[in-house]
């Protein structure tokens, strides 16, 4: 029996052309037509999520992911369809749980744990592990208004994750905290998953989707466009996002059509590795790293250009290169060939999480992209100094007195 069942769920919002907020306005304009546009935020979505599944929901901004999550969390009512959640549910939506800034961390944790369905006794029993997870032992009796935004989000996330819910709804967790806290969150996800908890996870990070999720769903304009293997769904997402560059996917063909005629080359995998060649999810600052990209050629190609873009968790491109710039022609590849492209680089990144977006393009100015997978792999850099820069380059000061 599924842990979460959604059948034909639809949710629309009325966007009134003129919204009356007071009785006075209504009395003064009794005959004004109450016209509105209907925004179909979630449109006939059906999915069953099994117990213990780590399920990713992706989509562009405004595609209805968060609305769907809010309906599931019992915050919004759906207009049509059915939803059911088996067991206790813990949502982490809009970066947090409902904290009261005038209360101390202690009171807020207890209050929120009770709202999430624990008894007072259970809430008190969980209290220590929540605070330990948030790493806020020294700030227990400080009022939330004096917390930094990062601290309160960490606390909120700790509450959501530590209340022993059967189903977790997590919206955009990667915006939370520094790199080491993010890694901790993912470790916690894995632990919960092993315990048979079900996790629904909304994110823009395709690397995380592919690393953690068993299955993923892509929403576009409220409709479910794609569901299944996270790599495939992430690929569809990139097609939506980078539709103009990946020309093959830009037209509106059905999924079956698209699958029958293949691209000339597919990026099948990407990862970070350390100097020894082992795949890694995190590394210390200044330890050299390499990016590996696996490409399968479906047609013979002459001098394709391989590109690698590294972005930080704020989405800014930190580094980008292509073989075209670095080495020029790459040679001839036959259909059916499977190659690994490896890019070694010095790791001057400051502590944060970074993603790699590999791409392959035809020879030329790189405009004719064959395949591109945004944020396919993620690495967390730790250690080093927290500077305000995105990189900490090797440098030397010299002070000359005249």
């Amino acid at each position, binding site marked *: 029996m599924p842990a979460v069942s959604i059948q034909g769920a639809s949710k629309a919002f009325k966007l009134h052309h003129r919204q009356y907020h007071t009785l006075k306005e209504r009395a003064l304009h009794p005959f004004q037509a109450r016209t509105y546009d209907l925004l179909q935020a979630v449109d006939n979505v059906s999915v069953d999520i099994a117990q213990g599944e780590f399920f990713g929901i992706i989509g562009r901004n405004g595609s209805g992911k968060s609305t769907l999550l809010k309906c599931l969390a019992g*915050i919004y009512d759906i207009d049509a369809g059915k939803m059911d959640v088996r067991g206790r549910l813990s949502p982490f939506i809009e970066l947090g749980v409902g904290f009261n800034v005038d*209360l101390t961390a202690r009171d807020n944790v207890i209050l929120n744990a009770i*709202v999430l369905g624990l008894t007072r006794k259970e809430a008190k029993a969980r209290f220590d592990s929540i605070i330990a997870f948030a790493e806020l032992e020294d700030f227990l009796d400080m009022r939330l208004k004096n917390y930094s935004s990062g601290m309160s989000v960490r606390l909120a996330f700790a509450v959501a994750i530590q209340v022993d819910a059967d189903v977790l709804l997590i919206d955009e967790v990667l915006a939370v905290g520094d790199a080491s806290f993010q890694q901790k969150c993912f470790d916690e996800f894995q632990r919960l998953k092993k315990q048979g908890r079900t996790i629904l996870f909304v994110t823009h990070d395709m690397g995380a989707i592919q690393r953690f999720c068993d299955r993923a769903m892509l929403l576009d304009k409220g409709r479910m466009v794609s569901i299944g293997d996270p790599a495939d769904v992430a690929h569809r997402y990139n097609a939506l996002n980078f539709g103009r560059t990946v020309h093959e996917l830009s037209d509106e063909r059905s999924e079956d059509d698209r699958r029958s005629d293949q691209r000339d080359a597919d990026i099948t995998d990407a990862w970070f590795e350390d100097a020894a060649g082992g795949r890694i999810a995190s590394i210390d600052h200044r330890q050299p790293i390499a990016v590996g990209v696996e490409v399968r050629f479906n047609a013979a190609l002459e001098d394709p250009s391989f590109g690698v873009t590294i972005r930080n968790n704020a989405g800014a491109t930190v580094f980008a290169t292509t073989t075209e710039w670095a080495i020029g022609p790459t040679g001839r590849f036959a259909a059916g060939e499977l190659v690994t492209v490896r890019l070694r680089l010095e790791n001057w990144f400051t502590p944060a999480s970074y993603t790699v977006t590999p791409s392959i393009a035809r020879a030329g100015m790189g405009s004719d992209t064959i395949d591109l997978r945004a944020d396919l792999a993620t690495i967390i850099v730790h250690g080093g100094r927290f500077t305000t820069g995105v990189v900490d380059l090797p440098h030397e000061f010299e002070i000359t007195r005249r």
Partner: protein
Amino acid sequence: MSIPEQAEGKRYSPSAFGDDLRRFVSLTYTLASTDFKLTYFNSILGYFWSLMRPLLFFGVLYFVFTDIFHVGTDVPNYSVELLLGIILWTFFLQATTGSVQAMLSREGLLRKMRFPRLVVPLAITLTALFQLTTNLIPIFVLALIRGIAPTWSWLELIPVVVLLAILAAGIGMLLSVLYIRARDIQPIWDVLSQLLFYASPIIYPVYYYNHHTLNYYGPHCVFNSLSDTVLNTVTGKVCATSSVPVGNNLHLHFIGHFLMTNPIAALIAQARHALVGGGEGVNPSAAFALGGWEFALIPLGIILAVFALGVVVFHHEAPRISENL
């Protein structure tokens, strides 16, 4: 995709009551007690101020109505009656006015978590109830100072407070969801509650319903009409302090009976009857002032009807609260 059987007809929507009574109670209590703690312990003077507010209001009214308008002077134990009226009214006002913007102040919770929505206004009433219990202490102190001996009838205050809380909770539910639809509920309730304040025997005793509604231009000081009183004072006409009813000879006219159907009037009358006493003529019970036990069912019915209406309207609005906020 298989359709699980238990999902049949079930919609996982936000509701007024939720499906777990224990959680509902625990959550209401937690929200109320944290709010209570915030007002009382947040600042050093927290308790002091929340106690001082009704007491200062009492002090001002007591001074104005005994020393300037000589209203209270003909009422035995006017100070106790005034304080009792003010503190019960403060509770009612705090619970209802606090409910108006309750949803807005709980927006953080409402937009992020699933929990029975009705908890929000009920917690406001419960917080006010906590404050009422501490505010009752000065009443008992004053009553003892004035030489009123404690009697078993003081226990009647419990059902009076319970009924007042039910009324306040009912109005609170209505106000909290109506405010989401119409933001001018706030000033409207401000005016309506003022009206209710003066229409209820809070700063005057029940039997004032008689003279001042019927003998508007009679020999007595016209309490409800301050302008007349000021005029009388200026022109040198001294307000008569006569006609304190003695014994059981209070006889309210029809309008008096009618005004007593106001639940606040009935409850405050009953509270004074229980605490201060002094015979049906001075502090009539609600039933006596209404003209019989059977008529006491009218304010009782209004209380229950308002509460039921509150529950129905709230239940209807509950699923859409977080998106309409």
